């Protein structure tokens, strides 16, 4: 399929809206068997027996695996694993929703019905699913980033403070809710494993499967043409993917597993709630003297996920004394995982509401307070920022929003029935950079094909990469096509951490540069023009010419602190009688380095800001701790914003080129959007009503009664 970009359009927009884009669940295979897990009803204990008699009686059942007859597998130790424990490999149950049997059947319907008919008995053990009830059992574990940091003398800084804030904040458990449920189809031909998967990281799936199946990676091919949203849930490798491959090899038939919406609640992680405590000390004129931020989140009994709620605090504001500390509490729930936006998404809720509280304690404009504490370099590790246009963001955002017209006292901006509130919050997100490789191939018709093992998860990869190559090659982007989502293509990292344009984009840039270089060498005379590329091939009797390029972060660039920054301004209206908070305006201004695809970047941030409205006012995956399970495993109980909730929304970018983050001048765009939105909204709610809410989501009941 050839897709030609038109300027300003998603190149794959048409195939997506017309249903022609092929997702993993759409792929058909001769003789396919469908898999469905029967899952544990209890959160903790031992499976004493699994009765499959009734399930086997369902017509079409091919095989049922339980812990007693399943092929033994090694632990999933690869770093790509979302959960190390593979279900059925033990009789131990550590969360509700853990697989206790895998049904394989001729149809999806038969597999689901048989799974429903599996009866298990358990030796029930006491369960704790509520981390807030077990805070005394907090533990510190190791992770990719330090769990605690300390610079300066916090006690002395706080002692010196003339104004203090010391408050606790909460964020809620949330799920990714991608519209396309996770789907995998594994096909084993006796030698090679072909896996069609809805994944954000094809090479990660390949490596993890290689480890569990004991196959060389070269005998595994993972294809992921389109992904209907992942948001982190499809960024790791989860048991259903492993078992599809295992079953395909055992049965010698293709095996497909498509998760139902309710299974999606326990099959591939969630964003854990956080409990945070923020202590701020400042001088009378609003200069921070001490900052302390603690964050606790639940993790699984057997797996570690630290939400790193304090990461942003380590780098956001200039302050001589900053301490941060992360903890986790083990609970009987599946493993949490990354979810847009991990770490700073929940973490900045605490810091940025606390900053608003400090502004009010100081009688200072909240934006002015932030300006006064602007960090010239990273306050924790002392490194210079690779580039930082946050001051410009403040200027653009405030100007576009009309911040100067804000009156400071709460409840001072009433309009008819509504209290109107204006609030702001800072956004910050660490820059993740992964090595990548790509190939560019010129054909005689003057067209170029980009090939890379990255994936398109809705972020616009197929639109952005041609823009990068076009700039180097000097040909229009619509003469450049992209093939991706296949581990037979040059290796690229996962599509997460807002890393794709940086890593894959830089690799494409390098490959295009190499291609141009080779063309110059092959040209008859110097001064080769882009419209002559095809002629060069003809001249040399070549049908096509390929060049590969790779990129990895340089060692020197590690001397810089790298972040995407932003400033978010929110207007909220709260009907004084009904007390329902609604966002009526959002303006975000961002510092993300150079913007490669302005329309795509704007779309990314727009979606992200709407995501932030969900975090602020709606999203909470409620758990019933007596039952140890989610109350509503559907989208009626777990609300996300609909179009009517989307306000007048503006996205602006500072004009910037980051010389250190990547050769493109770009940093990440995908995940900064949701950060800072929820605290901006919470602060606007305070400004509107005078009621300070220190948790999200903020709902009508929080605002009833007072005021």
């Amino acid at each position: 399929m050839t897709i030609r970009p038109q300027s300003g359009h998603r190149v794959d927009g048409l195939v997506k809206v017309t249903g022609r884009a092929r997702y993993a669940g759409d792929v058909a295979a001769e003789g396919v068997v469908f898999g469905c897990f029967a899952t544990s009803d209890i959160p903790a204990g031992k499976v004493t027996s699994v009765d499959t008699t009734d399930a086997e009686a369902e017509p079409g059942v091919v095989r049922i695996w339980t812990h007693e007859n399943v092929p033994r597998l090694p632990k999933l130790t690869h770093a790509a694993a979302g959960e190390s424990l593979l279900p059925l490999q033990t009789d131990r149950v550590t969360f509700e929703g853990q697989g206790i049997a895998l049904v394989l059947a001729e149809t999806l319907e038969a597999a689901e019905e048989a799974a429903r008919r599996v009866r298990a008995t358990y030796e029930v053990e006491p369960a704790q699913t509520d981390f807030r009830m077990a805070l005394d059992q907090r533990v510190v574990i190791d992770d990719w980033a330090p769990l605690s940091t300390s610079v300066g003398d916090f006690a002395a800084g706080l002692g010196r403070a003339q104004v203090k804030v010391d408050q606790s904040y909460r964020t809620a458990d949330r799920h990714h809710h991608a519209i396309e449920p996770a789907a995998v189809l594994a096909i084993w031909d006796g030698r090679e494993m072909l896996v069609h998967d809805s994944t954000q990281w094809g090479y990660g799936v390949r490596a993890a499967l290689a480890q569990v199946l004991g196959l060389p990676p070269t005998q595994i091919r993972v294809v992921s043409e389109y992904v209907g949203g992942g948001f982190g849930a499809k960024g790791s490798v989860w048991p259903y993917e492993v078992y599809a491959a295992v079953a395909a090899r055992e049965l010698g038939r293709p095996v497909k597993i498509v998760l139902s919406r309710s299974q999606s609640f326990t099959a591939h992680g969630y964003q854990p709630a956080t409990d945070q405590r923020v202590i701020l000390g400042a001088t009378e004129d609003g200069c921070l003297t001490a900052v302390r931020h603690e964050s606790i989140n639940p993790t699984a009994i057997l797996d570690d996920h630290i939400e790193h709620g304090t990461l942003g605090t380590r780098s956001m504001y200039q302050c001589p004394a900053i301490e941060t500390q992360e903890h986790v509490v083990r609970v009987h729930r599946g493993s949490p995982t990354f979810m847009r936006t991990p770490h700073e998404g929940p973490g900045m809720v605490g810091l940025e509401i606390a900053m608003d509280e400090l502004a009010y304690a100081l009688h200072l404009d909240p934006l002015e307070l932030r300006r006064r504490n602007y960090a010239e370099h990273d306050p924790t590790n002392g490194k210079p920022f690779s580039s930082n246009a946050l001051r410009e963001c403040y200027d653009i955002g405030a100007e576009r929003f009309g911040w100067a017209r804000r009156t400071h006292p709460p409840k001072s901006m009433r309009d008819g029935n509504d209290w109107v509130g204006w609030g702001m919050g800072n956004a910050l997100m660490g820059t993740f950079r992964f090595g990548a490789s790509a190939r560019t191939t010129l054909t005689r018709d003057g067209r170029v094909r980009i090939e890379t093992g990255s994936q398109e998860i809705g972020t616009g990869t197929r639109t952005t990469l041609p823009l990068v190559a076009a700039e180097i090659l000097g040909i229009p982007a619509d003469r450049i096509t992209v093939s991706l989502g296949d581990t037979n293509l040059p290796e690229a990292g996962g599509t997460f951490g807002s890393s794709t344009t940086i890593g894959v984009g830089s690799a494409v840039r390098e490959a295009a540069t190499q291609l141009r270089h080779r063309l110059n060498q092959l040209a008859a005379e110097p001064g080769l023009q882009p419209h002559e590329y095809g002629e060069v091939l003809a001249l040399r009797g070549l049908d096509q010419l390929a060049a590969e390029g790779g990129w990895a972060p340089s060692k020197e660039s590690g001397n810089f602190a790298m972040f995407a920054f932003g400033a978010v301004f929110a207007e909220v209206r709260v009907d004084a009688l009904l007390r329902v908070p609604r966002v009526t305006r959002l303006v975000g201004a961002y510092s993300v380095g150079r913007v490669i695809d302005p329309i795509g970047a704007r779309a990314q941030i727009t979606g992200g800001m709407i995501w932030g409205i969900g975090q602020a006012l709606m999203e909470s995956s409620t758990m019933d701790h007596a039952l140890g399970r989610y109350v509503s495993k559907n989208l009626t109980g777990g609300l996300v914003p609909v179009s009517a909730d989307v306000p007048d929304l503006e996205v602006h970018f500072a004009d910037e080129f980051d010389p250190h983050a990547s050769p493109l001048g770009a940093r990440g765009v995908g995940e900064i959007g949701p950060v800072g939105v929820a605290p901006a909204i919470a602060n606007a709610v305070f400004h509107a009503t005078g009621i300070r809410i220190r948790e999200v989501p903020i709902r009508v009941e929080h605002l009833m009664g007072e005021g």
Partner: protein
Amino acid sequence: MRPFHYERVSEPVKAIAIRAVAPNGRYLAGGTDLLTLMKDGVECPDHLIDINDLPFRHIELDSDELRIGALARLSDVADAELVRREYPLLTQSIEAAASAQVRNAASIGGNLLQRTRCPYFRSETVVPCNKRTPGSGCSAIRGDQRTLAVVGTSAVCSAAHPSDLAVALVALDAHVRLEGAGSTRTVALRQFYQTPDTAPDQDTILRPGELIVEIVVPRLDPRTVGHYAKVRDRASFSFALVSAAVVLRRDGDQMRNVRIALGGVAPMPWRLPAVERALEGTGLDLRGVAGALETILADARPLPGNQFKVSLARAVVHRALQLAAGAA
């Protein structure tokens, strides 16, 4: 999947006859509620009788009443010119329900018969729920109580009826016409729903196999005004936390014949007769209504998790009155 028979019928008597010999059968209208519950395993009919070809799609107004066929789609009713003109309250309540897509598919009869529920009702079948499996217990009452009802509840079940339209219809004193094997009857919608005490799995008094044929709404005095106000967690496409339908007749600068029904607070649309009486004759400027509004749901027995619904109900009624009386 659990197999079931499917049949499409075009005559009411045929539908009723099939249903009579299929005790575990269900009528299928738009399917927007039934099919969801079947996928969840909450409803497991062995026979689906598709009634979409029955001649119940009319929307007719005569000198006495408005008659709406049970199979008219929500969007058809909301958009009907005579409904917009004569009963804007109905249009408001329908447009506040679900989404445009659901309203295009959903029927009026199905809307009144959508299952009363709380979030646990759709959980996996191992989760106790008296409404789904009588005698299994109620998970919500000691669990997530936020959406539960605050009046007319029992220890057996505290779920709130979710329909918006029913709230408006109860405020309008509407009736439903029912047809069963060899009998027809007309029941006030106010008497149609039942409390959960004895048979929590039966939301209404509809007998097995009975069809809703049409809804009958009395004509309104030309000076009658009404308003539907709904509070929900997002701006569209979610069930009411609390809603209120208010109907009143403007008499000079006073309100008469005040009728108020609440949604989201009870297992059925909940009329407020004492408040209606107290408001009789009060000024359309709403001065002096505060006392009457204070008594709204004074007899409620909220749980810690849904306490807010009581004060919210007062606020919603107040707003609906303001908008109906033109005082907002």
